[in-house]
């Protein structure tokens, strides 16, 4: 049952509710970093990385500090009734994600220069990215457990990468196309993004069951 659920979450995160093309989150890097295929791949990998870690950590913090449940650590340590601090989740998640990304950046810069070269320059761009915050909040809203949250984070990152790489491939082709002068650059990219979103709308009819 659990495996099936994870599979559904995966397909949903990659295709049906693609972060860029269905939820319209993370549009800034989608337009900004899709000019070259290799930067798009690098950025995508960084997003997968950060989304996975952020999903895991924010889930733990929410569950054990913010939610009024019997497992609330504050209640246990201070011997008070579990307080309802769920209204803090947005600011708490931003704090967590930003610090986490900074920390991870420092660690890989020191320990793995190779990985830093391929991911490092993209990491600061993701610290306050709405897609990362979005996946953390969706995990809570959908009532996912830890494993499901982790899967959703990872697969949403994959979905983001898919959209980004597709876009980069198209835009590289577009460089050679005879685009009317007024439409060159961002305008034609936006139109293309719209067309891609329409195409991905087709996945909404996908039934898993």
């Amino acid at each position: 049952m659990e495996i099936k659920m994870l599979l559904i979450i995966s397909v949903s995160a990659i295709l049906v509710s693609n972060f860029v093309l269905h939820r319209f989150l993370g549009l800034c890097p989608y337009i900004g970093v899709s000019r070259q295929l290799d930067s798009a791949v690098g950025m995508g990998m960084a997003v997968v990385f950060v989304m996975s870690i952020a999903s895991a950590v924010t889930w733990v913090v929410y569950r054990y500090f913010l939610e009024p449940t019997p497992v609330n650590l504050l209640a246990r340590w201070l011997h008070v009734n579990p307080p309802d601090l769920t209204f803090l989740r947005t600011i708490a998640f931003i704090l967590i994600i930003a610090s986490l990304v900074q920390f991870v950046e420092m660690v890989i810069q020191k320990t793995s220069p190779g990985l830093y070269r391929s991911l490092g320059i993209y990491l600061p761009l993701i610290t306050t990215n709405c897609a990362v915050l979005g996946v953390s909040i969706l995990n809570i809203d959908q009532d996912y457990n830890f494993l499901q949250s982790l899967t959703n984070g990872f697969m949403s990152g994959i979905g983001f990468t898919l959209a980004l790489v597709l876009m980069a491939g198209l835009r590289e082709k577009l460089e050679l196309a005879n685009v009317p002068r007024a439409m060159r650059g961002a305008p034609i990219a936006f139109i293309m993004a719209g067309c891609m979103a329409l195409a991905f709308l087709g996945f909404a009819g996908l039934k898993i069951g």
Partner: protein
Amino acid sequence: MESGLFLAMLVLGGLGLVFGAGLAIASKIFYVQRDKRIEMIEAVLPGANCGACGAPGCSGFAEGVTEGKYSVGGCTAGGPDVAALVAEIMGTEAEASASMVAVVQCRGGRDKAAEAAVYSGIEDCRAAILVDNGPKACEYGCLGFGTCEAACPFDAIVMSGQGLPVVNEALCTGCGECVKACPRNIMALLPKDRQVFLGCVSPDFGKSVKSVCSVGCIGCGICANPKFVEDEKIVMDGKLPVIQYEKIGNGADELKNSIEKCPSGCFVIRGKVPTKPRKETADIES
């Protein structure tokens, strides 16, 4: 309710404290020596992370500049102002290029050089050259679609009405982007103090040059003739004369005779109107 407020402050303050302290410690433990120029360049960039330069964000661009991956004028959003600041930070390399100026080694505009075909594809020399080597009859001449104009980050190149690039030397920083962009190697960098250069790159024989262009170098060799210029200040390399700058210095005066004798007026003196081609005369046939 008061305990709720207290706990909210405790949780958020606690998280902030833990992460702040963690980052402070981590920045000491995982400190890595970086090129100081990267931070300085990042400080002068617009910081919009627009990605127009092709780099992922401004910090990526800053790092790329120090590695030589991007030119100092690569920031499209910042324009010439930012380019000048970045060039200043990059110091020596920019200074070296600042002493160069881009020159156009072709004078065959639409009025002087023949077209072999009508081209109606993408308005870009690099695309046009893929179609049977471009529409121009001369295989070496400027195609005139303004690829260099588009490549110039300083707006120093403007296409003339005759389809030839004109370099505004006051704006040119000698970055070499046009040289990289030109598929026919028409654009070149010349040290700023040199006054004269050859305005043709065609190594063809006189007859085939003459049939496609009225201002091309026909390789007659009259400029290198010892009668007009001593001491081999111009030597012929195949069908093209090569100016020996180390012998003439930077001025054009020593080549005065040769420049005047050139039947096509191929020598270009910078900042002056190019010499007019003389009427064809019988005695120059090679």
